[in-house]
């Protein structure tokens, strides 16, 4: 991975490779996370993707991308620790597989999406903003359609109430409603003036041209800082009911205070506990006890949070909750077999070694590490994962504490009439 700091402060990364048939350019803008920022960035991404000065409608944008041999443009928001990112990414087929060269045109197009949007008199197009506000609100309302991720989101909201981290990646309906074409434009100007901006190129990209082309983008030096979640004084337990057949249990835990040095230990701990198909949750809660269709865990390292999730029969709530805690206690009591340690480590080594085949996943991972001040590259992380010991995992687990229990379950059924 090559990295140059452009004169304007933008870090331009180049992950060069000729084994692919496509290349991509990703623009990452880092902002401090809060509900208002998230709402504005999520909407701005949609508006920027909808029109530029040159192609002032979604239809014209789409036609332009078709003529660039199906180049794929996506603008969106991402939540990572206490940072909210606005990301614009374009992916296109490499020139050598096409009847004509398009790479300069593609780079120029993505730059215009960022710098030359469809703006008149200090405001974005009113119709576009209204339509995209509507779409974004509906997208938020639609969370309920996917009960698994809805339960995850509810658990985070309940657990982190009062912390900016409770904000959703797409913000909230209340904040979105406040946005006007003028206020969104002011936000856009502020974003370009006062944010850290990185650009990532992958595949066979035109690095020299990109250096020149992006030299008029401004960038600040620092990414927003993250503060680990402090935890609630008492364990919170919330049960909500809905018309569902399967219950969704999500348990939120706080992690011990840690720095980047503990990253690999935390990853191995999570892979042993519930972060893989060789984990304790998968093997015991799902396979041996047949209690659930899925049972796993996810780590939000720098925020100091882990969640364990499981889809279960509504009447198995207490039993599964206890079983998940028992699996955690087993780790705390050093009850980890050599097999479990080795499997967890090979699982992670496999994932991180394979990253070189997935340039976009690598970029998305690196942008997170930039937020966390992690300087290591995936190759080094693989080496460090292999060094993690069982004792380190046990020590880490001892600092993991249950904080919040959330259960989305079925409405009580009325007895069937005989």
């Amino acid at each position, binding site marked *: 991975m090559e990295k140059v700091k452009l004169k304007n402060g933008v870090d331009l990364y180049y992950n060069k490779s000729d084994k692919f048939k496509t290349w991509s350019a990703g623009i990452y803008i880092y902002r401090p996370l809060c509900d208002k920022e998230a709402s504005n960035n999520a909407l701005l991404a949609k508006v920027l993707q909808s029109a530029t000065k040159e192609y002032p409608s979604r239809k014209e944008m789409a*036609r332009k991308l078709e003529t660039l*041999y199906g180049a794929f443009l996506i603008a969106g928001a991402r939540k990572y620790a206490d940072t909210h990112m606005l990301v614009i990414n374009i992916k296109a087929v490499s020139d050598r*597989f096409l009847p004509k060269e398009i790479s300069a045109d593609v780079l120029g197009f993505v730059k215009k999406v960022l710098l030359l949007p469809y703006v008149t008199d200090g405001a974005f197009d009113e119709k576009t903003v209204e339509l995209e506000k*509507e779409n974004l609100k509906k997208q938020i309302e639609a969370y*309920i359609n996917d009960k698994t991720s809805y339960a995850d989101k509810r658990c985070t909201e309940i657990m982190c109430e009062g912390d900016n981290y409770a904000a959703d990646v797409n913000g909230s309906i209340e904040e979105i409603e406040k946005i006007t074409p003028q206020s969104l434009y002011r936000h856009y100007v502020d974003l370009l003036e006062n944010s850290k901006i990185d650009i990532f190129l992958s595949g066979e990209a035109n690095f020299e041209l990109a250096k020149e082309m992006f030299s008029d983008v401004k960038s600040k030096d620092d990414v927003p800082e993250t503060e680990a979640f402090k935890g609630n004084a008492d364990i919170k337990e919330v049960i909500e009911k809905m018309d569902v057949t399967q219950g969704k249990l999500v348990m939120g835990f706080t992690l011990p205070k840690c720095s980047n040095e503990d990253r690999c230990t935390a990853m191995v701990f999570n892979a042993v506990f519930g972060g893989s*198909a060789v984990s304790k949750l998968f093997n015991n809660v799902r396979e041996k006890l047949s209690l659930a269709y899925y049972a796993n865990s996810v780590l939000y390292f720098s925020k100091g949070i882990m969640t364990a999730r499981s889809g279960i029969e509504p009447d198995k709530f207490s039993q599964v909750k206890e079983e998940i805690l028992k699996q955690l206690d087993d780790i705390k009591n050093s009850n980890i077999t050599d097999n479990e340690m080795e499997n967890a480590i090979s699982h992670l080594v496999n994932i991180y070694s394979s990253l070189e085949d997935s340039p976009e996943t690598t970029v998305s991972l690196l942008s997170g590490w930039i937020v966390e001040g992690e300087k290591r590259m995936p190759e080094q992380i693989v080496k460090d994962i292999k060094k993690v010991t069982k004792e380190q995992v046990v020590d880490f687990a001892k600092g993991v504490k249950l904080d919040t229990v959330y259960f989305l379950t079925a409405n009580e059924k009325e007895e069937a009439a005989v």
Partner: protein
Amino acid sequence: MNTIKFDKLDETLYSYEHPTGVKVYMVSKPGFAKFSASFSTHFGSIDNTFVPIGESEMITVPDGVAHFLEHKVFEQEDGGNVFEMFGRLGASANAYTSFNMTNYYFWATDNYEENLKTLINFVQAPYFTKENVAKEQGIIGQEIGMYDDDPNWRCYFNMLQGLYSEHPVRLDIAGTVDSISKITDETLYKCYNTFYHPSNMYICVVGDFEPEKIAAVIDKALKPLEKEKEIPRSYPEEPQGAVTHKVLQKLPVSMPIFSIGFKDSKPAGKSAPRRAAVNVALQMLFGASSQCANELYDEKITNGYIGCDYTAEEPEYAFVEISGESENPEEAGKRILETAKKAEFTDEELEAAKNALYGASMLVFEDSERYMQNLSKSVTSGQDMFAMFDAYMNVTREDIEKICNEIFSDENYCISIVKNS
């Protein structure tokens, strides 16, 4: 070993048939860190009536048996856990069942040969008992419960039931709690011995390797069995046209969702030119640059863009699905049906759509796992994924007009809607 070079794409495909009848396909990708392999059988949810191996009469098995079998193939006689075996070798493994196939696969960055042996060995070592079948009925029951709560899944299968009255493509892949309760260890062995015979199976490998070395590993791991003749299968005759033109289900959703189906009156799943022509038509009429999709979006009839897809794997069925979210799904359906029947487009739109699909199809080659999945799906269905590139470039106005006539009509149309009470 056969070698086919696709110069324009800079891809090379190696293939051979093993004496047992297994067909092997390999793509060597220098520089790829990921090695992916699949072992698939041409046996899916639609294969419910067939002549079992060594018998002479057709039998019918319970719905959902292919998916049930997929779960049970992971069961090992020594109680060993297949995921753990792969996990120990640093691989991630999984499987899925579709209408016409069951696929077992893994990807890894190390221990290629050991992992490949593990894949072939576990799929070739069935172990079904009364007890382990009963246990699985519980787990799959939970899985079916999850699908029952999934509005998109329900909407899709309701649409299929609106299109098809007889063909088993209309059935849920996992079956029902009732149908799977009728599955026994004996049913499983009968299906296994018939459809998991090497003559009905395919191995696909994508990664950085020497084809000869991988072929040697495969040849050594495969069980020695005599090659068998093709399995006689029977599908009920499906009448022309949709069964009904509207299906409605009530489930908790934030906004109504719809799936519009068009039954293809001349399914020809194996023909690359036909699939290319349908995809180009869908891109022009309903893609992000289309008049129809943008009007629905701008007039707030749909929430965002509509999605479209053409399913065509086997000779007996093929259908177009157009889906989206809408406060007024009936109006969306009306507009989509009108646009489809008119099928108007300019030469400029045709060129743009062909270029876009040509480029988008290149993405398949970017990742060894995705490549393996596509290769495996196409060879198991008797298709040629490499033929699609020329097919896209060769699509003509006449091709599009012909297929639009055969697919987009009032008779072939059904809209499935899921909404709150």
